[in-house]
């Protein structure tokens, strides 16, 4: 069997996006106390209520303990060794267009193989590129402004539209939610704000590239998307990070709010640095993502392709509050080398005739460890709720692991829910069949794995689907014995 | 026997039957033909009392009794039988047990004593022969894992056992190959009697080659637009259903 050698090759396939960009940063010294929290708020010129909210969150955070229930192992994080703010020099001089962007940064994107210009040209995507923590470029503003869509950094939103942001920020993920969300509420650096007014179909796909660069800098993104009644928006998020030799913490919070008949589609391709062969370095990706289907017939759809990070801890969720609301979760997660992922979703059915779909595809190779952890809860008043869950794991090599931990709680007997899960390896028969038709083993594996993930890729916007497939192929590169 | 007058029925907001009239006398066989979506299955379901249909106007009298207010099981006890187009599978529900429960409930309603196990088994074996069914069928769960043909034969077998006064055969020919069709039709013909009426609902004329109707009705857009003898079926076969639109438009 060539499987063993194929595994070796997968394990050895190096992180294609490993490099560091030299850019001067305006960075706070490591450590966290009230002074640091105030300093962050001050530097960003935030309104007073925000400073107060950050402090409240910080004080609450001090009372919390780091969660231990996820099936992931890592050395204890020293939260005093992390720097909580890093911005490109002179943030007030942040460039207004791509021309003003530091050519070194542009080259960084080029090295990633996803140059902004190409992306722009590709499908008219507005790109709000986040380099470290502060937004440095926003394009297509005018087109969006015409439609009445607000698409800007969260710092900007807090300055320019404080009354619009205030009632929503923290309304889906309150600072009391969990340890990392609380930390984020205290120290969040920047992120994205999207507001789609009533009845507006956002004229383009919105996209942000997140990157982590500065040494020892935690990144605490905050994203808030509000879709008013009858509106539609598709948001794409992609991440890569340069090679690092120390662990980096990333604790983002994403909040989505959909009113009556509104739809939000949130897609993620995550390819942060996973650490080296021995598991050194790599990003800790502890993210809280939650969507609130507040309105009747609203819909929130999460699609994610997770191939990076040393540790992923994330459960994009939907609260199906409005009657006939729809929640969806489509996920492909790859763990190899020493990567660990504990990921899944929560579907909380509260409204009548709410529906949810969960499709999770996990691929574990090398010594990768992966856990699907999902919750489907049908509330007492959620008459006529429906859920379908399909949860498949593919194992490559005999040193990896795959766990499936679904929680299904039904308090309304009119609920119909189906959950199916399988765990298997690529069968020798499938491999042999492909090879007997002339495919190399590597192509065969790639083809079979892509087929395994197809249901999820189908949910991605076209440009992203192509990138996701490319990422998956890179992840499985060298799978030939 | 059966008298349907001005029957209107809706599914959700959509009106399917729009004032349907039909009279079936004892021993008569009526064929109801019509294109897809004309309301054939709705008629079968409304007559047998299936949920999901709202009767907004009209009446259905069965031997003088108002059928529409009755529960489905009471209709069956009165002697109404529907042979389903798509018989549902009942995993785990043993066929013999099911048949016995059904037969005895009908007997009880008629004030007859329940059959003991021996006479029941004798009766059932006799009826199985009519449909060329194997008695291994009795050990299986109702319709579970049956082929399409087996399901349809099982429906007619139940009809033979329950001996209804009025049987509605809802597209019994759909999905049957010619041999299976012949067996089913033979079964039906064996059950013809002066006391038993039948409504044969079908899309195709071919079933009527085997089961000769006394009357043929054309159902279109929720109403019977033409009635005639069996020659009407042949006419339909020749002309198809296309002419209906022309006629209705006129």
């Amino acid at each position, binding site marked *: 069997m060539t499987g063993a050698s194929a595994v070796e090759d997968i394990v050895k396939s190096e992180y294609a996006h490993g490099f560091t960009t030299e850019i001067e940063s305006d960075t706070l010294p490591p450590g966290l106390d009230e002074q640091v929290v105030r300093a962050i708020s001050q530097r960003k010129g935030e309104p007073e209520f925000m400073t107060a909210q950050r402090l409240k969150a910080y004080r609450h955070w001090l009372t919390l303990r780091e969660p231990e229930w996820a099936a992931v192992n890592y050395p204890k994080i020293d939260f005093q060794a992390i720097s909580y703010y890093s911005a490109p020099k002179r943030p007030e001089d942040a460039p207004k267009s791509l021309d003003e962007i530091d050519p070194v940064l542009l080259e960084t994107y080029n090295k990633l193989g996803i140059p902004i210009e190409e992306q722009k040209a590709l499908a008219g995507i507005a790109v709000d590129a986040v380099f470290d923590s502060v937004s440095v470029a926003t394009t297509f503003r005018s087109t969006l402004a015409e439609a009445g869509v607000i698409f800007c950094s969260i710092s900007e939103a807090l300055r320019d539209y404080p009354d619009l942001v205030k009632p929503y920020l923290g309304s889906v993920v309150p600072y009391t939610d969990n340890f990392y969300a609380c930390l984020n509420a205290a120290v969040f650096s920047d992120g994205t704000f999207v507001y789609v007014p009533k009845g507006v179909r956002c004229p383009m796909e919105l996209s942000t590239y997140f990157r982590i660069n500065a040494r020892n800098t935690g990144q605490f993104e905050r994203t808030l998307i509000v879709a008013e009644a009858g509106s539609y928006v598709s948001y794409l998020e992609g991440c890569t990070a340069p090679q690092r030799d120390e662990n980096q913490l990333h604790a983002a919070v994403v909040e989505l709010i959909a009113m009556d008949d509104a739809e939000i589609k949130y897609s993620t391709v995550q390819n942060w640095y996973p650490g080296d062969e021995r598991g050194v370095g790599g990003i800790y990706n502890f993210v809280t993502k939650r969507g609130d289907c507040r309105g009747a017939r609203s819909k929130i759809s999460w699609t994610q392709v997770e191939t990076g990070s040393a540790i992923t801890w994330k459960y994009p969720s939907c609260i199906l509050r409005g009657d006939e609301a729809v929640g969806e979760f489509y996920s492909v997660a790859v763990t190899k080398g020493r990567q660990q992922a504990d990921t899944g979703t929560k579907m909380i059915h509260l409204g009548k005739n709410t529906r949810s779909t969960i499709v999770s595809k996990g691929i574990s190779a090398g010594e990768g460890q992966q856990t699907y952890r999902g919750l489907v809860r049908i509330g007492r008043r959620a008459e006529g709720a429906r859920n379908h869950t399909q949860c498949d794991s593919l194992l490559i090599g005999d040193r990896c692991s795959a*766990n499936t931990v679904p929680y299904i*709680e039904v308090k309304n*007997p009119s609920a119909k829910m189906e959950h199916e899960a399988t765990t298997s390896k690529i069968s020798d028969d499938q491999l042999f069949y492909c090879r007997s038709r002339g495919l190399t083993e590597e192509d065969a594996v790639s083809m079979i794995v892509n087929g395994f993930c197809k249901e999820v890729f189908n949910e991605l916007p076209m440009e992203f689907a192509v990138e996701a497939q490319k990422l998956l192929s890179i992840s499985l590169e060298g799978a030939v014995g | 026997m059966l008298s349907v007058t001005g029957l209107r029925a809706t599914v959700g907001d959509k009106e399917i039957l729009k004032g349907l009239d039909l009279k079936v006398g004892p021993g008569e066989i009526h064929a109801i033909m019509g294109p897809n979506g004309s309301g054939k299955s709705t008629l079968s379901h409304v007559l047998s009392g299936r949920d999901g249909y709202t009767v907004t106007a009209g009446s259905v009298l069965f031997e003088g009794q108002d059928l529409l207010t009755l529960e*489905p099981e009471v209709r069956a006890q009165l002697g109404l039988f529907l042979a389903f187009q798509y018989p*549902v599978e009942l995993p785990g529900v043993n066929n013999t047990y099911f048949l016995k429960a059904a037969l005895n*409930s009908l007997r009880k309603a008629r004030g007859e004593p329940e059959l003991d196990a021996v006479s029941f088994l004798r009766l059932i074996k006799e009826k199985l022969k009519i449909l060329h069914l194997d008695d291994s069928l009795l050990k299986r769960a109702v319709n579970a894992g049956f082929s399409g043909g087996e399901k349809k034969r099982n429906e007619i077998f139940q009809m033979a056992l329950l001996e209804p006064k009025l049987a509605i055969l809802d597209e019994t020919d759909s999905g049957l190959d010619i041999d299976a069709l012949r067996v089913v039709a033979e079964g039906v013909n064996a059950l013809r009697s002066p006391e038993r009426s039948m409504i044969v609902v079908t899309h195709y004329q071919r079933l009527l080659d085997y089961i000769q109707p006394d009357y043929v009705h054309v159902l279109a857009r929720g109403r019977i637009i033409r009635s005639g003898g069996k020659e009407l079926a042949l006419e339909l076969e020749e002309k198809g259903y296309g002419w209906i639109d022309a006629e209705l438009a006129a």
Partner: protein
Amino acid sequence: MNAPLHSGLEHWLSAPDDTPAPDWLLEQRRAARVRVSAQPLPHSKEEAWRYTSLKGLLEQDFSAIDEPLDALQAEDLDAVLIAGLDAHRVVLVNGRFAPELSTLDALPAGVRIGGLRDWLDRDPESLRGQLDTARGESGAFFALLNTAGLDDGLVLWLERGTLLERPVELIHLSVELDEPRVAHPRHLVYLEAGAQATLIERYVSLGASLYCTNAVVEVLLGRDAVLKHERLQMESRNAFHLTSLYLVQDANSRYVGVNIGLGARWARTDLNTRFRGEQAECLLHGLYLAGDGQLLDYHLDVEHAVPNCRSEEQFKGLLTGAGRAVFDGRVLVAKHAQKSDAAMSNRNLMLSEQAEIDTKPQLEIYADDVKCSHGTTVGQIEPEMLFYLRSRGIDAARAQRMLCLGFAAEILDQLGAEAVREQVAEAVAQRLG
């Protein structure tokens, strides 16, 4: 001298020297008591107790049974016997072996059946290395309590190659006493290599008794051994019921378990199985019916510790009234346990407005060449099915009952003896009203 027990459990254990026991066993009991005292009470923050509260149990203030109940006559037993079941019968009354009610004549050679207490009195050394070994290092709270309070129970021991044709029926009969009592029966089933047997383990009561059963069943299957194990929990609706099964299987052995749960106000069942040799097979079937005021909680822990074993877990639930059920199934495939095959399913039928179900089927897999799956459904009776039956003249209530029994048939069919199958089906039908 004795470590103090938790509030609400103070009287769960009688003085440890009350039972005849060799030193090694006394030591085991003492260690268990120390360990259980040092542990916190199970609480909802623990995964294993996430959905099940001990509140009702602790409120009862149960105390350990100290005296055997001699007052029962053979006639009293008639009410709980299954007509037509031909079996070697072992009767325990309130956790104590009752030889006068048991029928253990005509045992074939190689079969030893007896009360644990007697056995410990006569031949304690034979149980050394067998008794309380399957449990391993488990820190499960109530199994530890059972060990600490270990007193009497069944020992079923088949020597190498012995085939026991008639089933062994273990009747665990409970009767309410002056105050709420708890019994800690401990059963040991040991089938040496190639032995085969059927054990029907029944939990029943006289009348609507209030009591608590905290049982532990240990099953050791030698190479090629085969055990059919039917467990019928039909306790009084006022009773509390806890059982833990610990099963260890050697190579090529086969275990078929059928767990029926109909009784008790509050019942918790833990099934722990472990493959120790390859090519072994373990089938766990279950049917539970929870109605008004009932909580039935099932936990499965199936460990594929070695390669080439197969397990199948199939549990079905019917929920009526304000009934609640919990299913928490875990299949673990250890590193190197290649070619493991595991299929778990949990299907639930909700029959009322107030019923609740929490289900959590887990796979934990550390080997790649495996075939593992699980499926869970929660749903209602299909209206088409109901209509079909009604269109044949069967009234709605009866049609619903027929469909529920049809749903349950897959599990009921696993019960080997027709008499048992009929009795359980009858009980299910009765509960469905």
